């Protein structure tokens, strides 16, 4: 009874927010949860095939979208929080937006929300992408994030499969917490473009005995092939692997292999990080029994989420929007941007709300110095967002100076400044933090440039 009331209260809120022209990716769920705080578990239990959860610090939204493509092709569209609203109200809203009956739920879940979600939702599978340093002020420390995910894993049903990134030592170590079967995915291809040289810090230590790990190969950040000289902990052999990786201008060619199968595919999303997202999605889809052919089709048709390296035409300017949210992701975006032919202008949009991380000092761990090297192909550089000044200070110390470096407070003012400064032939690469991306999307939609976030 309470469940029905909560469901219909949420549906009403959804209808109202739609009428008001707002997407409402969380609000309807918030209303429904107020009526019945246990609603998420109740709705998820109505799914014929249970739920699939995706967590980890980076790549959740894109990974879940690729996996959704595979599920959609093989068994019909799942209930899915595609916009990336990954706290309980967002998860509930995904159900409110999809008319029943529900076959399966595919839920991207924030790390801090995972323990509760895993306890409530009957999950058939949980996929963990990676654990990078992210928004320390919100969770305390990296190790805490990892422990939150582990505590989620412990609460899964014994029948649930846990799919883990073998190349991330901290994620691989989570296998010990799994009550049921574990599958690993990882890179077997050696990637020539590796510039994994930065300090490893805490992530370079053995998650079991804290001794420094020996890496025989590194892809980026702390992802690679490792071995602990102290306790013998080592990278597990992954079941689903990437055997070949070739970077293309706006994507990559991948050779994916597993026991009993292989597929070669052109992934239309650029960068090594997206290859990882595709690999994780493939491993999860295969574990769920999706046909190899269908998995290949889903990878080949992968569409980035809004702002995840998305190209947008704004009149004569081409915009490339790439969300940045932590040092590792930022570094990978910069590396991918460098692969874009010719000169490009840059716009950095830094906000510091809860979803961005209220501590902006993570910027200093980003290798922005690489942009000021001669030959990097960078034209005008503009900073904006609520912490435009902090971004400008960071770039100043990275070797940029006025007049090439300029800043304006806010998102819209900075966008206008960047558009006015650059030359029409050059693409403008925009790198916003999460809430700055939402603001940017608003501005672009208002100007008729991009579709609405919640419609994508």
């Amino acid at each position, binding site marked *: 009874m309470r469940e029905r009331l909560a469901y219909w209260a949420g549906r009403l809120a959804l209808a109202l927010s739609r009428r008001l022209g707002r997407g409402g990716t969380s609000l309807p769920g918030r209303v429904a949860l107020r009526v019945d705080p246990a609603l998420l578990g109740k709705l998820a239990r109505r799914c014929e095939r249970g739920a699939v959860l995706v967590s980890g610090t980076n790549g959740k939204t894109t990974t879940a979208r690729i996996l959704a493509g595979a599920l959609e092709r093989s068994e019909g569209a799942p209930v899915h929080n595609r916009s990336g609203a990954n706290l309980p109200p967002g998860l509930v809203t995904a159900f409110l937006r999809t008319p029943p009956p529900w076959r399966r739920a595919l839920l991207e879940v924030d790390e801090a929300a995972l323990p509760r979600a895993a306890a409530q939702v009957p999950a058939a599978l949980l996929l963990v992408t990676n654990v990078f340093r992210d928004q320390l002020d919100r969770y305390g420390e990296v190790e805490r994030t990892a422990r939150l995910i582990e505590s989620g894993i412990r609460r899964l049903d014994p029948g649930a499969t846990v799919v883990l990134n073998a190349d991330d030592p901290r994620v691989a170590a989570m296998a010990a917490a799994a009550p049921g079967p574990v599958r690993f995915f990882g890179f077997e291809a050696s990637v020539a473009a590796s510039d994994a040289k930065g300090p490893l810090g805490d992530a370079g230590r053995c998650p079991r005995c804290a001794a420094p790990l020996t890496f025989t190969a590194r892809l980026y950040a702390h992802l690679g092939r490792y071995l602990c000289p102290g306790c013998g902990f080592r990278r597990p052999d992954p079941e689903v692997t990437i055997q070949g990786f070739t970077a293309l201008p706006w994507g990559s060619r991948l050779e994916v292999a597993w026991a009993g199968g292989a597929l070669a595919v052109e992934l239309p999303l650029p960068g090594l990080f997206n290859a990882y997202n595709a690999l994780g999605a493939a491993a999860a889809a295969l574990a769920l029994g999706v046909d190899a052919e269908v998995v290949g089709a889903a990878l080949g048709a992968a569409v980035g989420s809004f702002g995840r390296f998305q190209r947008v035409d704004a009149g004569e300017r081409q915009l490339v929007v790439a969300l940045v949210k932590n040092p590792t992701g930022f570094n990978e975006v910069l590396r991918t941007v460098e692969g874009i032919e010719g000169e490009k202008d840059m716009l950095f949009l830094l906000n510091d709300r809860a979803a961005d991380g*209220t501590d902006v000092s993570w910027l200093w761990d980003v290798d922005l110095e690489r942009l000021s090297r001669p030959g990097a192909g960078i034209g005008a550089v503009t900073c904006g967002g609520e912490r435009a000044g902090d971004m400008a200070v960071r770039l100043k110390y990275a070797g940029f100076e006025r007049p090439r470096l300029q800043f304006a407070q806010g998102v819209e003012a900075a966008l206008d400044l960047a558009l006015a400064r650059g030359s029409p032939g050059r693409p403008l690469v925009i790198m916003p933090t999460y809430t700055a991306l939402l603001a940017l999307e608003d501005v672009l939609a208002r100007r008729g440039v991009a579709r609405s976030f919640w419609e994508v």
Partner: protein
Amino acid sequence: MDRRLVLVHLYPDLLNLYGDRGNVLALSRRASWAGWTLEVREVGMGEAADLAEADMLFVGGGQDREQKTLAQDLLRRRDAILRGVDRGLVVLAVCGGYQLMGRRYVTPEGEEVPGIGLMDLETLPGPGRLVGNVVVAAGWLEEPLVGFENHGGRTFLGPSAQALGQVVRGHGNNGRDGTEGAWAGKVYGTYLHGALLPKNPAFADHLLRQAAARRRGEVPWPKLDDLEEHAARAVLMERMGLRGQR
């Protein structure tokens, strides 16, 4: 004319949390803008460091679970650091590094980790973490210190320690007595990052000037163009209801 300074950066591989790299970067850029060269020597755990030749020492902040390992290494360097300080070594320690400059650090589990006792202070565990933006009035500087804090330990100053400044917004050393950081001679400790020195150019220049004085006596230090720095500070000050203050 020798315009060279040497900075030893301890544990850059381990204590690279919270953008500590920014502090070293700020010192080296500002030194060069002022016509000096700052040579940075990175020293990891167990590696030899020649502190006799150093003008500055920087120790950053790490995760709680690294504190013990660090303390052991730091204790082995204690005498060398003390000798350096006697000869005018300028020390800046942030977060975890700051805590270990004191007499002791007690972990949340109640374990006692000895510090090197460079300053009269101790750090005890407390409930939750003290997190957020901070503004500190430091009368000896021309502008308040601004930054971000994130620490579980509560630091209490002994009678012979002096606070770096008084908290205007935020928590500071322990969230109770209104103090933030500590200094003794040319040794400075603070919980502020953000990163600290790029956003507090007056403090960065103060440290550099002291280091330069060790080499060549009192030297004039040029006023640099800090437009971006002041824009970053102004947003923070305004948000904290301190509009118009620099």
